[in-house]
């Protein structure tokens, strides 16, 4: 099976256990912070929602880029995913705006 023409795919460096475990670690830490913050007075703050969104966006990104190895993979996959995600997020915001539900944290 060595002579295949999938040049791009096989020769890239895949992350290893060392990296995976750190990713896993940060996922846990961020989740822990999220839940912790939920029980602090910060919950009432206007910044609560944006902060949480930011944290989950980081988690989202780490999983996608490292666990789903989008960072190392063919750029095509990045585009396929970004297109779906981009349109989905825009649509979601537009819908929330139209229904007057865009008052996160309020």
């Amino acid at each position, binding site marked *: *099976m060595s*002579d*295949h*023409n*999938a*040049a*791009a*795919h*096989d020769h890239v460096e*895949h*992350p*290893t*256990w060392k990296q*995976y*475990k750190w*990713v*896993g670690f940060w*996922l*846990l830490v961020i*989740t822990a912070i*999220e*839940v912790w913050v*939920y029980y602090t007075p910060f919950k009432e703050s206007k910044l*609560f*929602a944006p902060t*949480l*969104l930011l*944290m*989950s966006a980081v*988690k*989202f990104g780490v*999983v*996608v880029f*490292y*666990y*789903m190895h989008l960072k190392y993979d*063919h750029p*095509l*996959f990045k585009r*396929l*995913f970004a*297109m*779906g*995600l981009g*349109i*989905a*997020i825009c*649509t*979601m915001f537009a*819908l*929330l705006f139209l*229904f*007057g*539900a865009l008052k*996160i*944290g309020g």
Partner: protein
Amino acid sequence: MATADTPAGHEGHHEHVHYTSTGLENRKIAIWALIGSECMLFASLISTYLIYKGRSKVGPFPHEWSCKTSNVVGKTAELVAGCAPADVLKPILDIPVTSQSTFVLLMSSLAMVLALAAVENKGHPLPAGAGWWDRCLASSKFWLMATAVMGATFIGYQSYEFTSFVHEGLTIKTNLFGSSFFTLTGFHGAHVSVGVLWLLTLFAIDVKRGLKGKNDVLLVDICALYWHFVDVVWIAIFTLIYLIQ
């Protein structure tokens, strides 16, 4: 969509390795396109949940709710059945329990990457003096099973959550919150369940004839991509639905 025991694609049929324009595997492109599409699916579900949040006319409600501190958009207190202004309704979402299930699901993603790495590294002999942990890392069966078990645990948590909600009087028919909550998390749960079955199938193949070689790496890889995506969706759901009020 041939599974491992098909003659197609490997085992000597060199000519059968089809030429592809990008050098990428068809199935991998398809799974990424599917994931792109699923973004839109979950965006619709999450939007619905958020739009309907606070529009239910009767309890139970997701978060702590009292008639006085009403965060119900545009609804006056008397719309809420049996609600005296002094009542404080208990939040129905149980953050501690859900945090645990979130934890399990996140860790399953870690197990999943390790399973993939183990399949990819098949054929590379372990370095001399490898400890039990190295051997463990090299066991794709172990990690596949671990992922499936964690997925099943997540489903277990979800069943527990659903039944306890039903006991507290919230079913899919109760109010808008119930309908949109159960449908959203139910869709996610269905995705997890499909993933668990998929993982178990891979595990079975691994037991039967061992997963190795390029084609098998691909098999595990697309399952992993799906699995991580389901995880990522949960990250969004956990924050948007459970934590942010």
